[in-house]
């Protein structure tokens, strides 16, 4: 029997949120991240902000308002 992996702290969660924007993260990490974000409002905010920055960057210089 193997021990359950330790829960993420906010630093690890923020790093995984960023990594997941660039590549698929391991299933186990994805589950740990979901558990953390479900319980942590700060990391939910940071996740929303990183995703928002991506949307903003994709618009930058193209259909961004003049």
């Amino acid at each position, binding site marked *: 029997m193997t021990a359950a992996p330790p829960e993420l702290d906010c630093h690890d969660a923020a790093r995984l949120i*960023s990594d997941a924007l660039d590549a698929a993260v391991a299933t186990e990490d994805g589950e740990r991240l979901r558990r953390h974000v479900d319980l942590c409002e*700060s990391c939910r*905010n940071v996740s929303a902000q990183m995703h928002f920055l991506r949307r903003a960057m994709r618009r930058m210089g193209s259909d961004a308002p003049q």
Partner: protein
Amino acid sequence: MSLHAEIAALHQPLLRYARMQLRNDGLAEDVVSETLLALLEKPDAFEGRSAYRTYATGILKFKVIDVLRKRGREVHVEPFDGESIDDAFDALFAADGHWQEAPPAWQEPERSLEQRQFFEMLQVCIDRLSPKLARIFMMREWLEREVADICTELDITANNCHVMLFRARMQLRGCVSLHWYGDTQ
């Protein structure tokens, strides 16, 4: 505005993006000139200023990617040699890995996408990143390159690339929080 005036007005914004990516004024001028020439050769391709700018930026991105591919590993990017070299970054987190100060939500962020000033502020925040962070961030988020391509082109490891993107995103969200939403976090 005449077509020539519209195209002339695109010169500076396009040059700014090209410079940030290429870090070479001559090359940046070249890709912008080629982009503007391509626009002049097909003046009827798009109507409307916003669509025109989108079209021009799309052409520029392809040309920048082409130059980056050709230069390939001539461009040396110093990798981060660890995750704890940036005091300001480390100060975001307590020793137990939790936030020193809880990051608050941004109010109605989608509305800011309709505001020119938001994009000006975002550009200022990008300019405040270190050159290597800005370059990798723009390669990923503006040129929409895959991390594997960025790693190959810059000859850095995937882990280094992820670390740099993480730091760039964290610094940018902090800058946007402060300068657009008035938060200290």
